[in-house]
């Protein structure tokens, strides 16, 4: 039976000494993304609606 921990890959040699987590806690991380998408979602919703209307209008635009 393999009892070894999975190997931890590094992006660069000695990464542990060169990098640190962006967020100190899980709560800070979750709050960041909650705030992020609270700001972004209304914009994305508007974009989706703009595309729906664009596609609808394209059905009536003949180019010859």
């Amino acid at each position, binding site marked *: 039976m393999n009892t070894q921990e999975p190997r931890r890959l590094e992006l660069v040699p000695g990464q542990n000494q*060169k990098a640190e987590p962006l967020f100190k806690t899980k709560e800070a991380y979750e709050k960041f993304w909650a705030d992020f998408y609270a700001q972004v979602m209304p914009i994305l919703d508007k974009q989706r609606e703009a595309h729906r209307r664009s596609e609808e209008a*394209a059905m009536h635009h003949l*180019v010859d």
Partner: protein
Amino acid sequence: MIAQENGLLPIVTLGGVDPWNGVAQAASPHLDQRGLNKIQGALGNRAKSVVVERHYIDKDYRDTFTNFHAKKFSTPDSRCIRLHFFGAPVNHELIRDNTAVQPHFLGYVVVRPTRPNCIGRTLLAPMACGVTDCYLSLCKEEVSIQGTVLTVEGFPFISQDADVTACAQSALWMLARYFSNRYHVYPEIYPFRLTALTKDYSIGRLVPTAGLYVWQMAEALRQIGFSPVIYNRHEHGDTFEHLMYTYVESGIPILAAFDNHVVTLFGHRSAFSGQPAPQTMCGQFTFSSEFNCAFFGNDDNAVPYQTLSCHGSMARNIDKVERFIAALPDRVFLRAEGFQALLMQVLLGPDVGFQALSPIISRQKPVLRLFLTTGRSFKKRIAVRRMGNSLVADVYRNLPLPHFIWVCEISHAGLYPAKIMGEVIWDATRNAHERDGWIAVHYPEVLVVDEGAALNEPQNLVKFSLASAFGYPIFENNLRNL
């Protein structure tokens, strides 16, 4: 002067009082005055000799001949004439030596026996048409003149034949031929086949064509492997022309539809020395699109490499474009405006925004340049660009990247476009609602990467502090700087 006038490959030396008269003679009866005027208009006096390849079998014309012209009582010739242009005098001896004539090869025009438009498949080098000081998407083709293989790089052009193809099919053909020439994953599509792609989405007959609706053009693109998106000026307001620019800057030619016409746009010209055009998308940044003063495109009613001015008074200005189609690769799920919405939240956010993490960038209003590229192309240029810090270059080299990425380069007005100071990289194969799209945020002082998603694990954002930084070149691969 025409050498071997009655042969299969006469060569016309352009000179004298009426230099193009010899071309009209040698290419008759296929080439009419209207076609000759177009060729003259495109090449001016840059062509010094023309090799006339008679009895040329053109794959695109043969497609429409087989499926349409051959069904008529009176049929046109099934063969074409191909004109090869050179920027220096050539003769039958020289033409057998490709090293001698390749430097002077300007490209070719196929002349069809169709009326009212005889100009068929065309690939001319931009320099042949006097086009300079711009950024263009280009593709290469090899042509064989009696066994001498020559290469030409340009953007494909074709005029409508008014039977099988109208401007819609011609614009689609130009876009599709660019992609099939440049990327082997896209199939080569011929004019009648393009028209036939809409057969399940049409009412009434397909030919003679009455044009296409914009959504039918998008559908045709979908059927040949693209993931097209349609933008309407009315719906996208201030960002409409910025989005056009962003796709063109990404090396994705767009189909720009006017009131009753459509053209293919594939390049732009920017004026970096002047003030950027006043736009109101986001007051905290200047976008590279604001330096744009013209788009370059092919209008099948005109000659290759037309300019569409952003601020002039031409009949067909950019502000007359009502909607456009961007033919995205099928793995690009994140649209340009979706990336921009996420980007604004990153750059202006309290935790990872440039004002929180980068005193250097905060000194001036940042200039942002957005584009789509492949992870492979991005990595290929890391060694030359050096990315402002050796640690950043090392991380980027090792970081597994998706096939397509959105990139936003960050610079300052005095520095751009010579140098940049950082970038944001986002996964273009994710939708906007997935937080794992984050790949990297790089400021001169710090690099934040998602180590988790890179290794196909849960997101793990790690921060590298950077001890030093230097400006480095913008990414150049999508477009050719002429």
